[in-house]
């Protein structure tokens, strides 16, 4: 009872914080917050299949692309589409697509989740690293499809003039929802079963768990939120092109979840802030600096070098990520226990 009350208060507090940030920050700071928010949604959902369920998957870029394109096509008005599609006329089905922002996001999530289901039918029947290979290939296929079907995606030119509905109120609120949903999943019989699959799949089967079903549920949930995250990204950037959804996007998310700790949602949240905020904060390294009167000159890309070094140092000291596989609340609890003893 006490826990439920505390949790409700925390949710209300974080929603209020979202509102506060949205109404007080300038547009540059807000864009950083928006970036962090979207990446948090993506990383949290990626952590469910990769960290909690322990199935090494490289899917995010594919599902983010699907979510982004689906949302964009639903949001852009028909007459804008006609003007925008330069190579060939848009397909009639593309012209017919139209929906409000929230329905468009939900459809994006559902389309992603459905594709995840189709992928999981063959992949989860076998064990091993097949999922990584299949999802890697899936990302490539989606990008190549986006490049080569101009009637649906406007090819390499991508889509622009996507209505910018996604402000921090949307992104922050959906971020909070994602976090709460993930925590609720983890602290239920489904989350326990996912962890059991990660720790020892044979033993999980010997406990009567249908591991195929559990892996599919986890994968579909990840895909659902990645689709929504993609939709938010499209609306936030207002322009998307196939080249945004390369493997590098997945790689960035992989860095975040490994840094935060595989299986730890609060760790992922902190890592998103550190990585996305850090890359922004280290921007000064690219400029000309004066160290004790010595001018270094401008070195574009210097921040990435420093950033990589910082990441290596962090991983040396926290080999299992910042929080390991525990949540912040568990760490606080165990610290208090030690003090009592």
């Amino acid at each position, binding site marked *: 009872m006490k826990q439920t009350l505390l949790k409700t208060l925390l949710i209300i507090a974080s929603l209020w914080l979202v509102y506060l940030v949205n109404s007080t920050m300038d547009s540059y700071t807000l864009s950083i917050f928006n970036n962090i928010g979207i990446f948090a949604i993506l990383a949290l959902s990626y952590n469910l299949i990769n960290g909690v369920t322990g199935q090494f998957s490289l899917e995010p870029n594919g599902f983010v692309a699907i979510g982004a394109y689906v949302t964009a096509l639903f949001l852009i008005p028909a007459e804008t589409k006609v003007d925008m599609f330069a190579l060939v006329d848009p397909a009639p089905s593309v012209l017919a697509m139209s929906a409000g922002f929230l329905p468009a996001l939900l459809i994006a999530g559902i389309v992603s989740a459905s594709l995840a289901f189709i992928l999981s039918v063959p992949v989860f029947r076998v064990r091993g690293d097949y999922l990584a290979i299949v999802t890697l290939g899936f990302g490539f296929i989606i990008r190549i499809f986006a490049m080569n079907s101009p009637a649906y995606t406007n090819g390499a030119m991508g889509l622009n003039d996507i209505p910018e509905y996604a402000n921090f109120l949307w992104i922050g609120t959906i971020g909070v929802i994602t976090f709460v*949903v993930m925590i*609720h*999943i983890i602290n*239920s*019989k*489904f989350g*326990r*079963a996912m*962890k*059991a699959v*990660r*720790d*020892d799949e*044979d*033993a*999980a*089967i*010997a*406990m*009567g*768990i*249908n*591991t195929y079903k559990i892996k599919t*549920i986890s994968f579909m949930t990840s895909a659902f939120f990645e689709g929504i995250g993609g939709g938010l990204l499209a609306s936030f950037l207002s322009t998307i092109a196939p080249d945004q959804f390369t493997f590098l996007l997945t790689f960035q998310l992989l860095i975040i979840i490994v840094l935060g700790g595989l*299986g730890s949602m609060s760790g992922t949240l902190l890592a998103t802030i550190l990585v996305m905020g850090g890359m922004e904060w280290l921007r000064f390294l690219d400029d000309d600096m004066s160290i004790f009167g010595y001018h270094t000159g401008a070195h574009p890309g210097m921040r990435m070098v420093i950033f990589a070094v910082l990441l290596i140092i962090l991983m040396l000291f926290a080999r299992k990520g910042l929080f390991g*596989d525990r949540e912040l609340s568990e760490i606080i609890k165990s610290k208090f226990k030690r003090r009592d003893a």
Partner: protein
Amino acid sequence: MSSTALTIQNITMQFGGVTAIDNLSFEVKEGEIYGLIGPNGAGKTTIFNIITGNYQPTKGDILFHNETITGTKPNLVVQKGIARTFQNIRLFKTMSVMDNILIGFHNRSRYSYAEAILRLPRYFGQERKIRAEAMAILNEFDLTSFAEHRATDLSYGNQRKVEIARAVATDPSLLLLDEPAAGMNPSETEDLSTIIHKIKKDFNLTILLIEHDMKFVNNMCDLVTVLDYGEKIFDGKPADAIVNEKVITAYLGDFTHA
């Protein structure tokens, strides 16, 4: 006369050209503690894997309460009421003892994915119920004080107990124990046999166990089957097994030609 819990009917298992089990039959009656013994490589664990559905036998049938279960998927075999432990302890390493036990309740906690995400009343009701039941099982094994510890932080003997407790949590009527006393010291072994007798009574179990420790088998089992190279060489009371010439030959070798 009690009814038959498990029937092994003419089971033959071949891996390529190797015959691991050759036309084996035996019956386990309800409420018995039945021992399966034999030297290394005799095919004991293979029998377990066939019963639990991990292997499909080349020939023969497995009957559970007179119903054929040959070829049933492992996770469905558990739901029918057959639970097992492993020869080398296989706990869920990153999870607490409590969560390990709760995994056993997976199929008995009835709430949907949506109910878990939205935290509907049924989630709370079911979770409260299974947590109370899990605590009762831990109590049975004297493990309540370890509930929130990581499973792998426990001593070897206690990890064994957690593994058995986890199997009991799936609500089985037949429990398969693969070398439960392996690697335990004499006092731990004694402690374990007390607990096995206790849970057999409290949870109304039939137990089939594999073991090397003959003293343990002698104390525990009502009947034993001795295997050697996949063949049954003895069937009967454990006390008779130790003095049986074939059994001694299987374990120690044949001295008549030496």
